[in-house]
């Protein structure tokens, strides 16, 4: 991989070397387990969803393949913030890539405690509030489903956090742009659009629901067009940066998200089907900038909004 200056960007005052991030919940927290080269082209990565207390996650089947997608019901399994800071984080720090703390919480007190612990050990690192996990009964998604609660909790976080504050929204809400605007108004530095899409699976061999929770979150290329729509609409509605997360598998997907309004892109399930997906996207995006003579990836953000198809017809046979 050739590092490309045009790929660097600034989000809320912080510099990242690439607009490609690894999404929460898909990457091992032990750097000894990282495959060689897999973090090439990665601007930073989000931790697995962290909670105040340790969580064993959900019982039963946790992952299920669907057409061009995967459903998950992990249930935020994690060692709890303290153990994380004392163990995994010491490793991660050394990896030389920005780490974004993905946080889940059931109450405002929990959030404050989480932020406190992080501040004490890691300082003002970037955090991503996960107000959108579909796989836990309390907290999670419910924050995003109630705009007032969302405003309250983001405001609280903003007051108590000097580092970068991303808010990761849920596609499973009444009005997506309303929640994005609420996050912006309450001080979010960026919105992450979006978490997984709520779905269901039935095991036909048993005629039973696959998941103990019945519903689970769908991710992967299947949802790409849906999340792209949310990115488009959010970009049109808010002024803070939009970070896309949903089905991005190729550099064309990443370019589409950026052209539709994303400043940066998170790569999640794509890694399941190709561990070098992010590295390949970096190459592809970088050549696109080169070919189109675009000085910086930031100039690509939202570029499709200015453009409508100039003909109402396409000429398919390019002689």
């Amino acid at each position: 991989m050739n590092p490309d200056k045009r790929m660097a960007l600034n989000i809320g005052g912080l510099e990242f070397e690439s607009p490609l991030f690894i999404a929460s919940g898909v990457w091992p927290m032990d750097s000894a387990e990282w495959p060689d080269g897999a973090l090439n082209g990665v601007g930073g990565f989000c931790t697995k969803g962290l909670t105040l207390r340790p969580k064993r996650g959900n019982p039963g089947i946790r992952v299920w393949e669907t057409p061009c997608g995967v459903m998950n019901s992990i249930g935020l399994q994690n060692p709890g913030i303290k153990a994380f800071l004392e163990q995994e984080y010491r490793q991660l720090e050394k990896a030389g890539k920005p780490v974004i703390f993905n946080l889940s919480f059931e109450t405002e007190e929990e959030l404050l405690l989480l932020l406190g612990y992080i501040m004490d050990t890691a300082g003002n690192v970037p955090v991503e509030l996960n107000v959108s996990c579909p796989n836990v009964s309390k907290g999670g998604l419910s924050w995003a489903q109630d705009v007032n609660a969302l405003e309250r909790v983001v405001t609280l976080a903003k007051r108590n956090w000097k580092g970068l504050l991303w808010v990761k929204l849920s596609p499973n809400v009444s009005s997506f742009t309303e929640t994005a605007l609420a996050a912006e108004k309450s001080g979010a530095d960026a919105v992450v659009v979006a978490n997984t899409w709520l779905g269901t699976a039935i095991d036909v061999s048993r005629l039973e629901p696959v998941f103990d929770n019945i519903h689970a979150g769908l991710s992967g290329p299947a949802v790409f067009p849906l999340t792209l729509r949310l990115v488009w609409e959010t970009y049109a509605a808010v002024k803070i940066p939009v970070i896309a997360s949903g089905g991005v598998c190729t550099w064309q997907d990443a370019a589409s998200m950026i052209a539709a309004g994303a400043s940066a892109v998170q790569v999640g399930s794509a890694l399941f089907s190709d561990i070098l997906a992010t590295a390949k996207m970096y190459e592809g995006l970088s050549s696109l900038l080169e070919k189109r003579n675009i000085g910086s990836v930031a100039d690509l953000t939202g570029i499709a909004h200015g453009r409508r198809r100039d003909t109402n017809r396409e000429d398919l046979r390019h002689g």
Partner: protein
Amino acid sequence: MQRLSDFSATVIEKESMAPGIWTIKLKPEKLRLRILPGQFFMIRAWSSKDPFLFRPFAVSGKNPDGSVDISFKVVGRGTELLAECERGQKVLMRGPCGNGFPNPLGKRLVLAGGAMGIAPLLFARHYYENSIRTLLLLGITGEPEWEPFSKAILQKFPDTLLFSENGMIGRKGTIVDGLAEILDENDEIWACGPEGMFHAMGKIEERWTLPIWVSLERRMACGYGGCLGCAVQTREGPKRVCADGPVFRLKEILWDEP
């Protein structure tokens, strides 16, 4: 241990072991594999994003030319596509995954495989052939489809002790009955098969105080330890079958907990 990576490999041989059961030899294009019995690979024999996920398969053998054997049963779309591969075709592999079995203690190694679960034990048997004493057991249900498979195993390892639940081939009974008969208190057991078999083996571990290591299966999304989709609860907390396993000490596992 070798770091996991995604790489391309060529099908250099394909052999039918029994109807619907195949062994294929896969040779990585660039890599030289270092692997232990019990480790596995994630494999995809298609370039499309549908099916979306790799499929996990134990290594059932390793050859001097650097290729590995995968022995598998066709059960769904992924295994069907793998079975359709012809010699010369390329597949994608991810691995080596997991830790494999720990070094054997050096006494007799009893390898107990339930049906297709024998795959990783075939590799173990071969791997330790010249260094320690091993005993291979195969247990199958009474379903007729397993008979030709058993014969194929017997042909390769004629001293395999065979058990079928209805006695259609080999001795009648389960593999756990069989174990109870032949065990020596100095033995070490490595097992792979359906979970019901492991539950029954729990009693053996209690009675004989032998070390029993089992290789587990879980649905897997990543295979590299990232998604936590393959969790199993243990006395030390939740573990990932793909990265912390797939081999665990039987008594460590908390079957009844979510």
